[in-house]
Structures are given as C-alpha cells and as structure tokens.
C-alpha cells in the first residue's frame, strides 16, 4: 500500500458516484431496477472510503499525500512567468475521516430512500441526483486547491438545487430550490473574490503553496489587512453554504425537499462543507478574521435556536437546530477550537442525520404530515424510531454518554478558554445559552411527536413502524451517536485516537502580529515549560483549555438537563401552559415564531429592490435608450423629408425655373424624382458641367 495506490483508490471513490449518476440518469427511464445499480455503487464507494481511511490513518498517520495534474496551461505568460492551473487530490487525516462520514451518511440515506421514495414517478432520477451530490461532496473533501473547491462547491449547490426542487410541481419546492441556489451564490461571490485575491497574490490555488507563501510573510496587498479581507471573503462562501447569519434563510425553506435529502444535504454533509472549508483554510485566517467568524458563528448559533423553540413543523425545528449547531462549529473555529469544530462536525453529521431520517420515518408513516401538533403518542406505534430519535436528541442536547456531549463540551471549553484569555466572554455565554435552548426545543419536539395523546386519530391509526431498510439506517446512525466510538472516556473528548493522534491543530501560517495573542508562538516559553504532552498554540492556551474543561463540562450538562426538564414541565406534565407563556411574552414569541422576520425584510429590501431595479432598467432600456435611437430615426426621417422639400422647392425649382420660361410650368411642384430617364440624364449633364468647372 503506497501513496499512489491510495490516490488511485481516492480517485475511484470520487468518480464512482459520477458514473452512477450518468448511468442512472440516462437509462433510468427505461430500466426500472437501475436504482440498485446506484445503491451498489454507493456500497462500493463506502467500502473504498473505509479502506482508504483505514490505511491512511493506520500507516500514513502524519503524512499528507498530494497528487496533482495540470489542467490548464497558458504557457509562459509575460506578466506572471507561468500560468497553470492544477487540479489535485490531497489526502490527510481530516480528508479521509470526512470521506468516511460522507460516504457512510450517503449510503444510509440511499438505503433509507429505497423505501421512503417508493412510488415516486421520478424514482430513478432521485437516485441519480443523490449520486451527483455524493460526487460533488467528495470532490470538495478531496481537493487540494481553492479553485477545485469552488468548482465542487457550485456542483454541490446545483445538486442541492435539483434535490430541493425534486418535487417541482409544488411551487414552494421550486421556490425553495431557487432561493437556496441564489442565496448560496451571494456567498459564493465573496468566496470567489477571496480566491481571486489569493490567486492574484500567489499565482496558485493550491492550499499548500498558499500556506507556505503566507508563512514566509508574503501577504495579499502586502498588509495583514489584505489577509484578513481575503479570509473574511472566503468565509462568505461558508456563510452561504453553512447557512450562517445573515444568509441562513435558505435552509429552512430547503426542507421542501424529500426528507432523506434533508438528512444527507441539509444536515450531515453539504452544510458542513462550509465548516470543512474553514477548517481547510484555518492556517491563513488572521486574528481579526477569526473574530468576525466567531461573531457570525455566535449569532448564527443563537438566533435559530430561539426560532426553533416555537416552530411547529418537525423538519423546520431540525433545520433551525442545524443552523444553530453549524453556528457552534463556526464559532469554535473563530475561537481557535479547530479540532473540536471538526469533531462536532462528525458527531453532528451522524446524530442530525439520524434525527432527520427519524423524522422522515415519522412523516412517512403519517402520510406526509409534518406538523407536530397533529402528531403525538407515536412512541407506542414506532418504538424503534422513538428510541433512535431519542438517542440522537440526547446527543444533540449534549447529555453525557453521547457523542454530542463530547464534542459540544470541547467547543464550550474552547469558548471558555477564549474568554479567560482575552476577556471576551460573549461567545461562551452564547454557547451555554444555546446549549440550554437546544435541549429544550429538542425535547419539546420529542414530547409533541412521540409522547402524549395522538391528536390526529385517523393518521395515528395508520401509522406503523417503518420497514427494515428504513429502520436499519436509524439504528446505525444512533449507535454512532454514542460516545465509545470516539473516546473511551465519556467525559474526556481527547481520550480516543480521533483527537489525540488523528486530528491535530494545524501550523498557523499567519504572521505573528496578526494572530490572536494566545496563538503566538513563544519558543522560549515552550522550552521552559518542558511539558511532556503536546502544546496547542501556546502553553497559556493549553492551560486555559485544561482549566476550562471541568467547569464547562458540568455547566453544559446541567444546562442541558435543565432544558429537558423545562420541556417536560411545559409539554409533558403541563405545569406551565405554553400558550399562556406565549401570550405573556408576546413580542418575543412573535419574533421567534416569524423567524425574526428575516424573509420579510430580505424580500422587501433585496428581492423587491432588485426586481424594481430590473424593471426600471427594462423601462429605461425600452423607453430611453431605444427612445434615443427611435428618436434619432424620427429626426432623420423628418430631416430627410425636409431635405426632400428643399430639393423639390429650391433645387428642382431652380431647374424648373428654366423650364418655366419655356412654358413647362407643370414640373414646378413635381418631385425631384421624376422617374424619367431623360430628366436624370439632364441632371447628369449639368453635374458633369459643374464638375468640369470645378476640376478644370
């Protein structure tokens, strides 16, 4: 097993889903069983990804394998020396872990969909779309350069467009698809601009080379500000794709797509791509850029969490919780808790996929009813779904013994350490508040859906446990939401190989004075401290992190339990009437229920503004620009009429003056164009005479 073999496996893993897509799309209409082709391709892909991850982590733990090929070569360019664009694949630990997660979630979603989508008239097409999505997602993960990440970024966007708008007969679905694509494009503009800045400065797209250039002090525009701007612009892409504030509005709408799609794209993989991208470019994010990122992350964690509390659609709750959790990860990156962001990305992928598939299972058995107020009591009808959903919810809420507890604890410790080092406690405060809210709304959802009495008898009667193919994925995913896969010590995230040896903080390329204070490398101090274990950034940070570990652990666990308790108080035991509570805090409730009016504000400003502008321009074009043209044409016609008149009255009049003398007055008012050859000849003669006179 050498590097080149690994690269070949990676390439096969990447392109297999594409083949699945092409074959299934082209022949899916004729050959009904072709979705099994796509599914088996996914199984192979998953196995390959597993092999890849195993060998990479076991034998090449500390190596980064890169393989590039030249895609575009514009030769020896006068200004830049050479202009080439390489496409390449990079395998490091993060990549292979990510591939494993992506293929696994994709596989279970494929299998889940076999029964979930049964009977759809575009059944095979659906699997084809899943194939192209998996391909694009793997592309994002495997790439070693910015351009390719942008390419697959867009491809992911378009496959998401196709999948959200899969039931395009519904106006809401096609609208949501369009909205998702366009909102993402806004972020992509920023991201592309960032890529342009970096390419213009370094003449390469490759991460490695850019990091190296930054580390030797070669900065965009020559200043640290340039690096910050580039970092923030690149982050714009992540804002769009990871549905961060203020571009988060597309994700809740995207729930119009089939539920397995929501599980795959809008929970586990695509939206995580933004976080993944931030992890990739972490070494060149300057302190200021990180602060912006952390702020956006904190806001995005908080606002959706407040919205999720009042939503009634089960998928909407999950959607907002996704945004909130992604905000967590982004915030973690912003405060420097890089490894925990990635950790949370993985754990979140599994338990959120489990939640979505669980909700899909519920929706399926309730005949596409999504309103939680019409559910209830499903615990008895669907025990397996209930248990898996519960485990995943516990993980999401951050209850000990689950994976979510480990990762969330890490993030909160990161924010806590950040607060203790910089004095900025806002992030920690927001993190803890969101942890409480999360536990609350998740258990609200569980209680409304599975506990209590059935609200809709008829649908309840028909509800039944899902088939094996649908239940299997739930079991797998909920098992993966338990702690022991990641760390054998349920209270210490670093107890497993994942964080202790596979995922490590990267070397920062940013110049010293543009970093956070605690990230500055102080060589002497490291030597003085003579610590046996590894140092993250600086001894101070390592210490702060260790100190923060236990307080955050207890605080977050108790806040989560408190949230659960509140949920039971209000919805299960009904000590507090939720409607009364809503009435009491009417403005807050309304704000939350209406999603902080983001859609309305955006529609009134940006959408309506653009449409009005476009109409104005069309009007301007039609009436003004074209008006000038037509006006000048009109003037020309009038002018020519005048010239004609002039001709017939003055010029022709002069000619006919002579004719008048000989008695031929009839010609006087006739037009210049007599239609008679002979009069033309007359003019010719006179013109010749005049010309002769001139040129004599």
């Amino acid at each position, binding site marked *: 097993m050498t590097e080149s073999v690994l690269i070949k496996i990676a390439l096969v893993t990447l392109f297999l889903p594409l083949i699945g897509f092409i074959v299934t799309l082209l022949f899916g209409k004729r050959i009904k069983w072709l979705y099994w082709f796509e599914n088996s391709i996914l199984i192979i892909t998953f196995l390959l990804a597993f092999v890849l991850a195993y060998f990479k982590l076991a034998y090449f733990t500390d190596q980064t394998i890169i393989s590039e090929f030249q895609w575009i070569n514009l030769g020896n360019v006068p200004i830049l020396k050479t202009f080439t664009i390489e496409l390449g694949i990079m395998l490091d630990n993060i990549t292979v872990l990510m591939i494993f997660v992506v293929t696994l979630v994709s596989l279970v979603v494929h299998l889940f969909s076999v029964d979930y989508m049964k009977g759809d008239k575009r059944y095979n097409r659906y699997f084809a779309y899943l194939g192209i999505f998996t391909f694009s997602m793997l592309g994002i993960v495997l790439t070693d350069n910015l351009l390719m990440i942008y390419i697959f970024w867009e491809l992911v966007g378009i496959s998401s467009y196709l999948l959200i708008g899969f039931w395009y007969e519904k106006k809401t679905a096609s609208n949501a698809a369009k909205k998702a694509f366009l909102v993402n494009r806004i972020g992509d503009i920023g991201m592309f601009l960032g890529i342009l800045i970096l390419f213009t400065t370094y003449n390469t797209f490759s991460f490695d080379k850019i990091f190296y250039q930054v580390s030797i002090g070669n900065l965009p525009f020559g200043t640290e500000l340039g690096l910050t701007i580039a970092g923030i612009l690149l982050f714009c892409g992540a804002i769009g794709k990871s549905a961060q504030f203020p571009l988060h509005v597309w994700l809740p709408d995207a729930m119009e797509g089939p539920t397995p799609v929501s599980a795959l794209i809008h929970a586990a993989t695509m939206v995580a791509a933004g976080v993944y991208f931030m992890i990739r470019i972490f070494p060149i994010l300057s302190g200021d850029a990180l602060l912006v990122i952390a702020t956006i992350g904190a806001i995005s964690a908080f606002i959706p969490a407040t919205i999720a509390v009042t939503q009634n659609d089960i998928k909407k709750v999950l959607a907002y919780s996704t945004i909130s959790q992604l905000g967590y990860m982004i915030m973690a990156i912003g405060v420097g808790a890089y490894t925990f962001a990635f950790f949370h990305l993985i754990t979140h992928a599994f338990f959120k996929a489990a939640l979505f598939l669980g909700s899909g299972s519920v929706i399926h058995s309730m005949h596409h009813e999504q309103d939680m107020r019409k559910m209830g009591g499903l615990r008895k009808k669907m025990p397996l779904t209930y248990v898996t959903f519960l485990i995943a919810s516990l993980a999401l809420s951050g209850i000990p013994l689950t994976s979510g507890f480990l990762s969330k604890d890490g993030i909160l410790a990161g924010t806590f350490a950040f607060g203790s080092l910089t004095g900025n406690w806002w992030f920690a405060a927001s993190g803890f508040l969101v942890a409480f809210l999360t536990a609350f709304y998740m258990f609200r959802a569980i209680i409304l859906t599975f506990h209590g009495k059935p609200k809709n008898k008829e649908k309840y009667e028909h509800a039944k446990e899902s088939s094996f193919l649908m239940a299997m994925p739930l079991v797998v995913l909920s098992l993966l939401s338990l702690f022991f896969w990641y760390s054998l010590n349920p209270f210490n995230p670093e107890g497993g190989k994942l964080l202790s040896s596979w995922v490590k903080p990267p070397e920062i390329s940013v110049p010293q004075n543009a970093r956070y204070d605690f990230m500055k490398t102080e060589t002497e101090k490291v030597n003085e401290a003579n610590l046996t274990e590894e140092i993250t950034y600086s001894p101070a940070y390592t210490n702060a992190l260790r100190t923060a570990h236990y307080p955050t652990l207890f605080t977050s666990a108790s806040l989560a339990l408190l949230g659960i308790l509140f949920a039971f108080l209000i919805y299960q035991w009904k000590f507090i009437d939720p409607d009364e509570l809503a009435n009491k805090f009417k403005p807050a409730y309304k704000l939350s229920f209406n999603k902080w009016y983001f859609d309305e504000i955006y529609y009134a400003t940006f959408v309506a503004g653009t449409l009005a502008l476009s109409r104005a321009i069309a009007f301007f074009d039609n009436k003004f620009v074209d008006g000038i043209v037509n006006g000048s044409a009109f003037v020309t016609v009038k002018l020519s009429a005048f010239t004609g008149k002039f001709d017939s009255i003055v010029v022709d009049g002069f*000619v006919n003056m*002579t*004719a008048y*003398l*000989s008695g*031929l007055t009839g010609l006087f008012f006739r037009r210049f164009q007599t239609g008679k050859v*002979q*009069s033309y000849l*007359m003019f010719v*003669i*006179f013109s*010749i*005479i005049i010309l*002769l*006179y001139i040129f*004599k």
Partner: protein
Amino acid sequence: MTVYDIIFYLFALITVGSAFFVVTLRNILHSAFFLLFALFGIAGLYVLLSADFIAVVQLVVYVGGILVVLIFGVMLTNKITHVQIKSGTLQIIPAAIGTLVLGFALIKIFLTTNWKTVQLSAESSSVQGLGILLVNQYSVVFELLGILLLIALIGAASMARR
C-alpha cells in the same frame, strides 16, 4: 488648303449637319434618313484617318444593319393606319443650354490639352495589322464579343417573340 483638308471639311459638314437634323427633325423617318447620312460621313472620316477597314465595317454594320433595325422598329411601333411618326420633344431649352455648355467645355479641353501626336508617314491599309491583333492579343475579347452577340441576338429574339 489641301485636298485632304477640303475632303475633311466636306465629310465633317455632312456628318455634323446630318446629325443636327437627326436630333431636330420631328419626323422619325426623316431623322432615320439623316442618320444614314451622318453615318456615311463618319465612314468617310474613317477613310481619311486611314482606317479603311473600320470604314467598311461602319458602312456594312451601321448603315446596312443597325439603321435597318431602327427603321423596322419605327414601322413596327407606329401603326400604319393612323400614321403618327412625328416625335414630340421635351425640355428643349435646358437641354440646349446644357449641351452647348458641355460642348464648349469639351472643345476647350481638347484645345487646351497638349496632345502628343505622332505623325505616321506610311498610310497603308490597316487590315493586316488588325487581323493579327485580333487573333493574338485580343483573341479572348474577340471570342467574348462573339458570345455576347450570340446571347444578344437570342435574347432579342426571345424578348421580341413574347
């Protein structure tokens, strides 16, 4: 005043005078006959210019061919029953002024131009020289003209038949 001069003036007078009558007489047939004289005079001028072959061709083609065609035209287009072979005129005065001025201008130009003339001594027949030129240097033109003539005749025949 040599004989040559006298003959020249004679032919010139015939030519110009007949041409004047051609364009001024109202009766078309009369005009046609004066055209005959004018063409004849021109043929004479050709002889004087020692272009005997052209003179002969002038007589044969113009007088014998073209003029006949013209007269046929007159006869075919003016019904015999109510003979109206008189031709009207129009815009006489401006035309007269124009052509007079043009004529004077032309003559003035001819007079003021410094022509480089060569006085040829031998005034032999030019037929042989023409023949050689015709089949050597101008053979393509010659053939093209033949084709043109053929096309013109076929075209004229088909047009007139319609």
